[in-house]
């Protein structure tokens, strides 16, 4: 090799396969989100060779997603309405930074048709479906009608909104409900995450439930339309990962079971759905594709179904965005769904990898499980537990992936969703994946805030869960926090006594420890701990009483 030209030729040869893909789908992408999902999207951008632009509220100025990005733009003060939901500010940030595309992640603006429109008007590519698809699918009733028209079985119920007149007028509604069969769910057409939803067991309760659900839907979504749907007892919540390219091709990339929920918030998901045979999987995937075709789906989406104990699938709804739990499908298929989203948004048809994964989707050869670790107290009905994270030791090792948006020192704010990290594991089958998840959760140490780790450690050891006997009622049927917490509490008392004795001087007359021992004690002593400062003496004396109101259902969270 003599001349520069020779070297260049060799270089070009050796890197040829890479060079073909080296031209990224976009030069610069703005990530309109925060936390773990923003970080996850930024990583995908960097692997593709795109620059990533982060946005942040004042609460997140030092957040990991801001540091990971190539550029970052401040949006405004902490409340989401002033920052991550401020459409004009985000579009302006994208234009000011020369971004070509906007990835909305999940939650926030990901399913707002107005935002997709605003991006398109500004000449930005919205990484997601078209604005008209978003508008169509945002209304669950129109989704139900379209699915039914496409021949997909929808959960029995009404296909039109039900209304209650001031002067009665419930006759038709009650007759409709009788035809559907009790118990019945009253659901908001614009709803999500269990809001605007009521279960009704008797005809006499129907009127009140319709009025209450409608009022809640009006105040939450600005649309009071509600409909009736049969409550399917003992059902599992299953879903299918879909991708649609700009050429109109639609593929199903596998299924997930998300039955482990409380109040319609998912706590743990797995892929594939345990216990289905190949035939059932093919049927489920075909139903999902039929729904997607009916909407002219583009980019990533998920079709959700109920799986009756008898084995029937009933269509629930379509989510036209990346799901929180997309990672388990990635681990099973080997795809990077965010990178695929960006390629689709850039107009490229499906590559071989996607088509191969779609062909193999009904015969999965690996099993993945995800535990959503949130700052919530599982002993107090999963009430949010904000604070400062003073210790953060995430698991690692073979087959373990942790998508986290926080680190030691991070503050968990009250303004946003309390999801801290997703612990995902993959192994060749479900029993091995469960062992791996048990191992990973055992390694995870978090201090400063209460997390859902105790719940997750408990469930991965529960016989019914291990046996795959899942249903959406699993948590209410089996979770009893007091029984699980008590042994830990006794142990904590003993450990604290041992720690006190270890650090206390042995001189007679001394009544408290002076020296600080090595290890965790010393390391946790600094920096100043906000959680610790905050605990007032009243709590210590047990004289403070707090009551949570019945607004529990109204916790605002990511849509599922």
């Amino acid at each position, binding site marked *: 090799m003599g001349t520069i030209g020779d070297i260049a030729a060799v270089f070009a040869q050796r890197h040829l396969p890479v060079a073909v893909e080296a031209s990224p789908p976009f030069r610069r992408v703005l990530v309109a989100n925060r936390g773990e999902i923003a970080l996850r999207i930024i990583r995908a951008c960097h692997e593709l060779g795109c620059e990533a632009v982060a946005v942040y509220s004042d609460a997140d100025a030092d957040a990991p997603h801001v540091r990971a990005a190539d550029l970052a733009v401040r949006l405004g003060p902490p409340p989401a309405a002033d920052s991550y939901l401020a459409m004009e500010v985000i579009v302006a940030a994208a234009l000011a930074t020369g971004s070509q595309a906007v990835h909305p992640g999940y939650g926030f603006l990901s399913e707002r048709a107005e935002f997709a429109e605003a991006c398109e008007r500004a000449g930005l590519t919205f990484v997601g479906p078209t604005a008209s698809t978003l508008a169509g699918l945002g209304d669950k009733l129109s989704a139900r009608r379209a699915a039914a028209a496409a021949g997909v079985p929808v959960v029995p119920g009404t296909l039109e909104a039900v209304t209650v007149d001031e002067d009665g007028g419930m006759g038709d509604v009650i007759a409709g409900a009788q035809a559907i069969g009790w118990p019945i769910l009253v659901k908001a057409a614009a709803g999500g995450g269990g809001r605007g939803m009521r279960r009704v067991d008797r005809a006499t309760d129907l009127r009140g439930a319709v009025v209450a659900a409608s009022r809640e839907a009006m105040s939450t979504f600005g649309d009071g339309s509600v409909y009736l749907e049969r409550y399917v007892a003992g059902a599992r919540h299953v879903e299918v990962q879909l991708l649609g390219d700009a050429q109109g091709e639609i593929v199903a990339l596998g299924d997930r079971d998300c039955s482990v929920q409380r109040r319609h918030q998912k706590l743990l998901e797995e892929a594939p759905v345990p216990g289905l045979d190949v035939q059932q999987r093919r049927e489920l995937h075909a139903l999902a594709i039929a729904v997607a075709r009916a909407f002219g789906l583009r980019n990533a989406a998920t079709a959700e179904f109920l799986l009756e104990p008898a084995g029937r699938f009933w269509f629930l709804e379509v989510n036209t965005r990346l799901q929180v739990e997309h990672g388990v499908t990635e681990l099973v298929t080997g795809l990077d769904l965010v990178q695929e989203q960006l390629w689709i948004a850039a107009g490229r048809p499906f590559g071989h990898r996607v088509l191969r994964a779609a062909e193999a989707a009904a015969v999965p050869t690996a099993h993945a499980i995800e535990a959503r670790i949130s700052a919530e107290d599982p002993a107090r009905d999963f009430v*949010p537990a*904000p604070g400062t994270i003073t*210790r953060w030791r995430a698991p690692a090792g073979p087959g373990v992936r942790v998508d986290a948006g926080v680190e030691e020192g991070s503050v968990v704010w*009250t303004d946003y969703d*309390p999801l801290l990290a997703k612990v995902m594991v993959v192994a060749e089958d479900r029993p091995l994946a469960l062992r791996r998840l048990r191992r990973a*959760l*055992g390694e995870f140490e*978090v*201090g*400063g805030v*209460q*997390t859902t*780790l*105790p*719940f997750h*450690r408990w469930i991965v050891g529960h016989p019914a869960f291990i046996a795959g006997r899942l249903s959406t009622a699993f948590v209410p049927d089996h979770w009893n926090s007091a029984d699980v917490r008590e*042994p*830990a*509490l006794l*142990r*904590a008392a*003993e*450990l*604290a*006594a*041992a*720690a006190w*004795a*270890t*650090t*206390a001087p*042995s001189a007679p007359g001394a*009544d*408290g420890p002076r*020296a600080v*021992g*090595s290890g*965790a*004690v*010393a390391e*946790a*002593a600094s920096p100043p*701990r906000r*959680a*610790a*400062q*905050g*605990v*007032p003496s*009243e*709590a*210590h*004396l047990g004289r*403070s*009483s*707090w009551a*949570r*109101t019945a*607004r529990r259902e109204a*916790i605002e969270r990511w849509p599922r």
Partner: protein
Amino acid sequence: MAAVTVGDIRPGPGGPSTAGDPARGTLRVTVEGSEPRVFELMPDPALSAAAARSVGRLASGPGADAGGRFEVVVDGWRFEVSVEPAARAALRDRVRRTAVRAGVGRHAVRAQIPGRILHVWAAPGQAVEAGARLCSLEAMKMENEVRAPHAGTIERVSVEPGARVEVGDELVVIA
């Protein structure tokens, strides 16, 4: 619970000879919370190494001046625990009982979570029963009612609707 490893056999910092000194006597251990749990127990020197791994020192709060407040995480459960010699705790209890009898019952109700004040029902001079609603605090889109820990008279209301409060901020003072 942490797996028992060879490391557990090793004496922890300070060693078992001092840690288990019976001359220091029984400890009062309070696991804090809305329903505090109080234990009187002898420290187990065999646990000192495990404690070094799972126990952190809390820098402030009751007992922190004596260095006796800890954060302990067991099986993912997080506890705030204060520890002091049982004899000293008993003495403090006597002092407090005397003070309550003497009518020194004035104390501040503080925010236990950060958030925004939604409603204020308490008004200065108002007589309240134990459990009466004082104010409500919105955190993570949920309304939390703050109630009077005991009967008394509202001496001061330190917040107004819309105010943002941090953990430990004074809300209402009841005399």
